[in-house]
Each structure stands twice: as C-alpha cells, then as structure tokens.
C-alpha cells in the first residue's frame, strides 16, 4: 500500500466518477508544504492556510476535507506561522480518511481547511501548569503550553509513548517547558508506566501546581480527572467527539459536562475534566464504527486492485 500515492488513488476514484477537479469551491488552495512520517502512524503536515494561521489561538482546531467525496474531520492545531501563512497538524493514520491523507505528499492540496474553530484554551497569568500529552495528544498540548510560557507561567510537561523511539515532539516540548517529564510503557525512556504514573507521584509528593491539562485518548483523560479530583486541582481536557460542520449546526459532537448538554465545537473543545461524562464520550465515539469498518474494507479492496494494476504494469 505504501507504493501507492494518494493522487493515484484519487485519480482512480475520480476517473470512475467522471469528476475533473479535486479542489473545492472557490479559489483557496490548501497545499501541503511539508510532510513528515514520525512514528506509530503519526504524520506531521505543514499546510498553506493563511486565513486560519492569522487567527489561530492555542486550543483551537480546524476541519479538513481531502477531496470532493471526502468527509469532514476535525484536527487540533499543533502550530501555525502567521508570516508564512501556514498551520501544522499531526494526524494519526487510523481510518480511511486519515490513511488517505497519509498517502498524500508535499505539493498535494486538500479540498478544504476551515477554521480556526472552537473556543481558545483558557490561559491565565500567574499559574503553574502541568500538561499531559499521550501519544499524538502531545501535538495538541504544545500550543497551550507555549501560550502559558509566553505569559510567564511555569510549565511542566509530562509526555508519554509506548517506547522511546515513538516519542513525539520532545525537543519542541523542551523549548517551551520549564521541566519535561517522560514516561514510556516499557520503561525504555524516563519513568516506566503512563503519563498518569508521573502525575500521581507529583500529586503524592505535593508538588506545586495550579492547573492540570490533559489531552489524549479518552481513557487517559479520564484517568487524569480521577487522579486530580481528590486533590482538588483544576483540570482541563480537550474533547474529541465525532464532528461534522464544526459550527454548532449539527449537534453530532454533543457531550455532557456537569449534567449540561454542550456542543464540543462551539462550547469547547476544552472542558472541566471533573464534570465530563467520559463514558458517554467513549460510547458516542463509536457511533459510526460499523460504517467505518465498511468504508475501510472497501478502501483496502481499491488499494489492492490498484497495486495489482501497478504490478501488472511492471
């Protein structure tokens, strides 16, 4: 599958449907300027999106679409550059759309990038921040930690991975953190265990902290919330429910926070971790899993057919 370029795939699809262009309505071109294959199916993309870069703030996200038949998917902004008019995204290739995206190359263009969306992260002066990023959640905490650092707050980042080789953004996090603590599942680097293992000992040792921020898989965010609750430390999480329009129009991303129905796209994505109904979030994330499976199987078939075609051409 690696030999297959996304454009070939798109061309294949488009040929079948008699479509001629893959860019969306209007004149905007959302070109991929850089693409890096990092680790554990995580890819880093620098994308031309000047309107988004101009207004981006820590904690916000974009919604993107690859091509005309594509779905809209939300991705947190990991970085942006106003002067260059670019945004940086970290995307894990786990479903059809993200795998297709991972097949795209620098120079290819996305059909749509819209944003910045969501309420920016709440950043208050004079606080000590402990930020936990699990896996590619590190990309999501990055701009928030930086925002704290820029206004003079003390920042402690706890970043984790399965093993040392898969650790993401360590240097970037060191540049904006007063202290970086590392956790790996296998103990090959830093503390053996999860990011929560590190946080637990910090809490037990009564280390000074005003705000805890956790972004990553729901199980990790829930574990953090459960840990800090008894210590009464303010804890924020950024939720990642299924979304479609990202402007409050569809209600797909509804979450329950403190018994209140909230739309993550316009009321969040950042919420008080101690009030979030995580069980509901986990359940709702599975809303389309049967369809996702169908989509993936069909996509794999197309990829295989394409590979056969290429092999035959040799």
């Amino acid at each position, binding site marked *: 599958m690696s030999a297959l370029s996304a454009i070939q795939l798109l061309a294949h699809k488009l040929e079948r449907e008699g479509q001629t262009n893959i860019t969306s309505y209007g004149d905007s071109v959302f070109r991929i300027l850089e693409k890096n294959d990092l680790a554990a199916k995580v890819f880093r993309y620098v994308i031309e999106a000047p309107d988004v870069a101009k207004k981006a703030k820590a904690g916000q996200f974009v919604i993107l679409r690859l091509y005309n038949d594509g779905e809209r998917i939300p991705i947190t902004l990991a970085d942006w550059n106003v002067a260059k008019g670019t945004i940086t995204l970290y995307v894990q290739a786990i479903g059809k759309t993200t795998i297709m995206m991972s097949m795209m190359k620098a120079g290819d263009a996305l059909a749509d990038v819209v944003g910045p969306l969501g309420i920016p992260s709440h950043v208050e002066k004079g606080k000590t921040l402990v930020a936990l990023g699990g896996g590619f959640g590190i990309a999501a905490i990055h701009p928030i930690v930086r925002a704290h650092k820029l206004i003079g707050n003390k920042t402690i980042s706890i970043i984790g991975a399965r093993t040392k080789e898969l650790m993401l953004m360590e240097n970037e996090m060191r540049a904006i953190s007063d202290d970086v603590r590392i956790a790996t599942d296998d103990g090959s680097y830093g503390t053996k265990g999860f990011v929560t293992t590190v946080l637990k000992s910090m809490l037990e040792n009564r280390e000074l902290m005003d705000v805890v921020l956790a972004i990553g898989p729901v199980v990790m965010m829930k574990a953090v919330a459960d840990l800090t609750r008894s210590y009464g430390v303010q804890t924020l999480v950024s939720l990642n429910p299924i979304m479609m329009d990202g*402007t409050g129009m569809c209600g797909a991303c509804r979450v329950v926070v403190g018994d209140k129905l909230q739309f993550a796209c*316009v009321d969040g994505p950042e919420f008080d971790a101690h009030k979030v109904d995580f069980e509901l979030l986990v359940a709702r994330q599975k809303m389309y899993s049967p369809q996702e499976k169908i989509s993936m199987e069909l996509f794999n078939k197309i990829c295989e057919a394409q590979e056969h075609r290429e092999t035959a051409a040799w």
Partner: protein
Amino acid sequence: MNNDTQTSPPRTDEPMAQIKPKLSNKERMKIPRHPMPEQNPLERARNFFEVPLGYTPEMAMEEAERCLLCKKAKCVEGCPVNVQIPDFIEHVAAGNFSLAAQALKQMNALPAVCGRVCPQEDQCESLCVIGAKVEPVAVGRLERFVADWERANPANGGTGSKVKIPELPPPTGKKVAIIGAGPAGLTCAGDLAKRGHAVTIFEALHKPGGVLVYGIPEFRLPKQIVEAEVQYLEKLGVQIKCDFVVGMTRTIDELMNEDGYDAVFIGTGAGLPYFMGLPGENLNGVYSANEFLTRVNLMKGFEFPNHADTPVPMAKHVVVVGGGNTAMDAARTALRLPWTEKVYIVYRRSHVEMPARKEEIHHGEQEGIEFLLLTNPTRFLGKDGWLNGVECQKMELGEPDASGRRKPVAIPGSEFTLEAEAVIIAVGNGSNPLINKTTPGLSVTKYGNIIADESGKTSREGVWAGGDIVIGAATVIKAMGAGKSAAKAIDEFVTGKKQ
C-alpha cells in the same frame, strides 16, 4: 440529471409564440387547474430523483390561460419578493417563455428554487381571485416551468452556463460582505451586484447554498439547480468564499475596519438544533435533523460507501419526531435509504396543526410513511449505548396555547414502545451564537435572534441582517424577501455615504 426526457422543454427559442383568441374570464375559469405530473409514489420512495416532474410547455400554456391578468394583482402582494406574477404568466400563455423568464428574474434571483420550495398555497395562490370559486392559478408550477425552461434551453445557455446576464451598471467601488450563502445571502448578493457593488459572500461550509444544499433533499430540490443559480450570481460578479466562518476566521469588525467592507449583511440562518431533554437522547442512533440531513444531502451520504466517505445511519426502523417541513424532509429522506424498512413520524398534535406544507405531508403519506399523530416520545430506550426503541405516549388536544393551537395534553397510561435503531429529532432550531458572541454592540433577543428593523438594519452602523437569524426558523422565500429589502437599504447606505 433526472427525468430530463419527460420534462425537457423544446430546444428552440419561442417555438410556441402565437396569437390566440382572447378568452373571457368565464372561459378562463372553466379550464381546470392542471395537475402536476409526479413520479409514482412506490417507485420514488426508493430513489432520490425529483418527485414532481414539471409541466410540459403545453400544460404550462394551458394553465397560464387560467390567469385573469388582474390589473391590481392580489397575488403579487402575497409574494415576499413581489414577483410581477400576471406579467410573467401573460408571457407564458403566449408561449414567450424567454420573456417570461426575464419578467420573473426581475424580482426573483432564484426562481427555480422558489418554484419548488415556496409555500405558494399560503402566499400568492391563497390570494388568487379565481381561488374563491375554483382552484387558484398554479403560480408555483408555472414559475418552476419558466425557470427550468430557461435553464434547459440552449438559446439561453443550458445548465446556467450562458444564461443571459442583465447589463450591469459601472462599478460603484463599494464593497459589501454577505455572511452565509443561503437564500437570504444569495438574494441580497444578487441584488447588490446588479447595482454595481463589489459583493463577497463568506460561507462556513465547503459549498454555497445554505439550507438549499444541506437541508432540503435532492428529491425536492435537485442540487444541480442550486448550483446553476449560484453560477448565475457569480456571472453577476459575486465572489464566493467558502470554508470561511465569520466570527472565527474573521470578525465583522475586521471585515469593516481592516478589509474595507462598507456594509455587512448577516444571513447565517437558524442553525443550532434543539434537543428534547428526554432520557436516552444521547444514545447512539439519536440524531438532530440537521445532522441527518447534512450527512445525506451536503455530504452525499446516500452514496456511502461507494461515492461518499461520510457515513449515514443504517437503520431498519426510523422514528422522526416533529411535524414541520424538516420532519417531512428527514422522514422521506430516511425512507429512500436502501436499508430502511419502516419510517414513522411522531407528532404531538393532530393533522391540522402540522406546520409542514400540505403537499409534503401528502407526498409522505403516499410514499408509505406512517404518521403517529397526537403522540409524543417520553424516552429513548437502548442497550450498551445503542438505541433500540422509543417509548411514546398518546396525547389529546386541550385549550389553545400561546400559538393559538390547541395544547396537546398527555393521556396517562397510554405509553407504548416503537422499535427503532434511529431517531431523528426535528423539533426546531435556535440561533447560532458565533456572530453574536464576536460582534460587540449587536443587539439580540433573549433567544439569540438578531434585532433588526423592516429593512434588516441592526443596532450596528452598516450592519444588516435577515432570514432565520432574525425571525427564527421560517421559509426560504421569507429569507429571500429579507435579503431583498436589506439589499435596497444597503445600496442606499453605501451610495449615500461620504467618501
């Protein structure tokens, strides 16, 4: 794309133009109202092609003969954009379809849309003078015929690509920003462009059209028609910027102070779905009508997984809650998905109180949707996070409430359960907060609707608003009427403004 063979008007310009003997009013009223040819209900309930097939030229001319061509035409007063109805109908009767199109387009930039989705029975047709004795003239069907004829006729360019463009005045050098490419915004943009202003529409979604593309389904309004009407606006010089959320990507203040826009029109619609607050409402399988319809219409989910990546609910039994046009659209859309076996509409009042158009209700009944009236859901049932049923209770009508309709009252002990893997909630929409929150000084009601006068003028200098964001969820044509009034006021404002 569909039914072209049955509906295509002749391929030459003005083939029918002829002089006919003048009929007396009595003779005109003797002609029966021509029924609309429609796709067979059982067949269409399984496809997404348009339901009404449209008049042939002969049918249209015959129907047009029924119009008395009143000097003081009541029907015009009933039209929110004041289409000069007798003028265009007179041209249809004479077979001068291209002149009819010109007369129609003078007041209405989106006739092919309005001919399909306007509630004519409550507007122009309800005021038709012959309506007192016989059935009123089928104004809506004639409007649709003329718009379709113009689009399909090669002399006018076919599919909108070469449709005649009115002569535009020299550019005024004034810039107007329109927020939202729905019916209000598109109408406002068209009218301002025709007055020589530089107009940019900012649209949050990836495609222009607003509710015309995300809400109203293909079988009621083919998307190709919306595209053609949008292309026409672009020919008038209107710029459309999609993927642009005003309030997030730029604020109104930035548009006016930094980007040089002289005026702004807000037509963002009513896009924040209401839920019912019932137990089980967050189970997987419970959708807002907005989510369901957007997935199927805008994201082409009915072609999942082969030609669209956006998944749609795959349920055998679907329950739609609500009695408005959105509920009808959701129910009829659900019925057309290949895996659906049964669709119910659950509505708490009776048939007469249903706010949906009679035609839509009738179409839904014909297609086999089961209407459970005087019925209200009480909770949503499920297992392991997934919906498997809806508990409902029967209602009876009590005293009239604030809306003047009789208030539904629950009958104790009347609970029953419907099997359902999908529930679609279509009980209305609130206002979207994105603009209000980011525009200081913009006065809104407690429901978040923007406060505006008759012309759409808001509390902010240079800012107008219209459509659902002002009056709450209403109709396409009302939004268009608001866009039209605002365009007039904005034109006066920017041209009278000091340099």
